[in-house]
């Protein structure tokens, strides 16, 4: 089957709702596991990697939650396919670089994704819209408990689950949330927040994980330590920190509207102006402007417009997704033209932002007037 027939259309994906999805775009819990009797993927010879994959993939496919699934070896996916999976946050950039001996298994609603022979033999993740760390943990814990009956994991009682990189040792867990924080960025309050989150031993990264920029004011917060703290304790710790970041973001937005409304409306108005009228626009600029438009929707400047529109365009305007809609190979310049065409078309019926937020849309920001 073609991966593109399997993947949920971006329009549908963007409409998925979750708690606090104004700010928390998605939640993810990933577990790293390895088989006891094989070298880690980075050191194993191709034959051994293939053998590992042939043991893991059928076990994953047999899981009840994976009844309807897509499974493929990485060498059967084109560079474009892989890039699309990266843009959807289903696989890592590292996994996209893999070929024979590495694979992918994905369930129908894209809530469970298994990377075989990435850095570890098995990297499994559960994804949820909005803030649902606990639910994601429970889902992946369940899948893992079923898999351990069939696969003999590398595990010792002192060091826990053994992983290729010592940074993942122990629980092998990475709990993360993707946050949209335009308020903190506009209020120039983001850096102290990042620093204090870092001090708590949590990592703050950009849109595509390790070593990437925070495009579109999207930040990933995740745990770093995996040894010496239980999975549930890590989930709880992250929940607490996220609750605080959400509060800070809401507060930053409210304060901005109260004290610097003109500055915020100016940013949003200009973002709309460019998105709706440009004839050439890069993916980076698009993401940054869509972020402002998303903020505009949140604070009620675009009555009748759903946040899902911004989220859908956020996916569709990325390079691989854009390329996919055209049969001929596009250069970066051609993509910029087509991206602008698409944005003008999609925003044709979106009226320009109103001058003042409507109370219902901006209900959260309703402060008593003095």
């Amino acid at each position: 089957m073609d991966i593109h027939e399997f993947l949920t259309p971006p329009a549908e994906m963007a409409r998925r709702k979750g708690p606090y999805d104004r700010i928390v775009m998605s939640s993810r819990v990933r577990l790293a596991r390895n088989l006891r009797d094989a070298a880690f993927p980075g050191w194993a010879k191709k034959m051994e990697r293939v053998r590992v994959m042939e043991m893991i993939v059928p076990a994953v496919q047999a899981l009840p939650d994976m009844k309807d699934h897509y499974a493929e070896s990485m060498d059967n996916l084109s560079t474009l396919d892989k890039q699309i999976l990266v843009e959807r946050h289903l696989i890592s950039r590292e996994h996209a670089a893999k070929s024979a001996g590495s694979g992918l298994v994905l369930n129908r609603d894209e809530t469970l994704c298994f990377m075989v022979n990435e850095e570890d033999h098995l990297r499994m993740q559960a994804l949820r819209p909005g803030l649902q760390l606990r639910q994601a943990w429970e889902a992946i814990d369940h899948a893992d408990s079923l898999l351990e009956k069939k696969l003999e994991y590398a595990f010792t009682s002192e060091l826990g689950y053994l992983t290729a990189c010592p940074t993942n040792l122990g629980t092998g867990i990475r709990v993360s949330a993707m946050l949209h924080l335009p308020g903190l960025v506009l209020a120039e309050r983001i850096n102290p927040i990042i620093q204090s989150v870092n001090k708590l031993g949590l990592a703050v990264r950009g849109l595509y994980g390790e070593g990437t920029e925070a495009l579109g004011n999207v930040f990933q917060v995740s745990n770093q330590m995996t040894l010496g703290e239980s999975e549930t304790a890590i989930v709880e710790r992250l929940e607490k920190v996220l609750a605080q970041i959400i509060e800070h973001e809401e507060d930053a937005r409210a304060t901005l509207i109260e004290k610097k409304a003109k500055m915020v409306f100016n940013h949003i108005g200009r973002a709309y102006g460019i998105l709706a009228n440009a004839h050439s626009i890069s993916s980076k600029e698009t993401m940054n402007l869509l972020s402002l438009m998303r903020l505009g929707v949140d604070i009620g400047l675009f009555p009748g417009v759903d946040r899902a529109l911004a989220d859908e365009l956020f996916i569709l305007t990325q390079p691989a997704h854009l390329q996919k809609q055209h049969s001929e190979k596009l250069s970066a310049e051609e993509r910029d033209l087509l991206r602008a065409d698409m944005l003008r078309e999609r925003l044709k019926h979106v009226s320009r932002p109103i001058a003042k937020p409507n109370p219902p849309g901006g209900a959260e920001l309703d402060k008593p007037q003095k």
Partner: protein
Amino acid sequence: MLCCICKEREATVHLTQIAGDKMQKVDLCEECAKTKGVNDPTGFSLADLLLGLGASQEIEQASGGAEVKCPRCGFTQADFKKAGRLGCPDCYRTFADALEGLLKTMHKGTRHVGKVPEAMRQSRDLAERLKTLQKRLAKAIEQEDFEQAAVLRDEIKQASAQLPGPAKA
């Protein structure tokens, strides 16, 4: 002070991260700071950087310069230095001494807390039960309570039959 990455240029960027009660310090030259993305607070994490730096040094020190090689997969400390990853699960035993210090700086603790595979948990519980039974058996024999000892002996036999692999009792 020289940059701790290139060890060539003067370090002008000094970073300190305090996580809990642990303090980590890095001194970098401007060029290395740039390539490591230190200037961009969003994409940078000190721990990632430290891992690459500290790991190989620790292993080198612990081995006293001698080449340590994993008997199972042939992975060496030089490989670890290059990759920052280990070769196979057994490497954790091979490089145990060297890794201990590294794990201390990297993690909250050095002992696993959390999920244990069910089969592992069962055999651990069973092993513990066997130990208790054996203690009680020794005591019964000491007190010449042979009736009780016979009961205990049967229980031990039964329990050790459930242990995977050759019976240990």
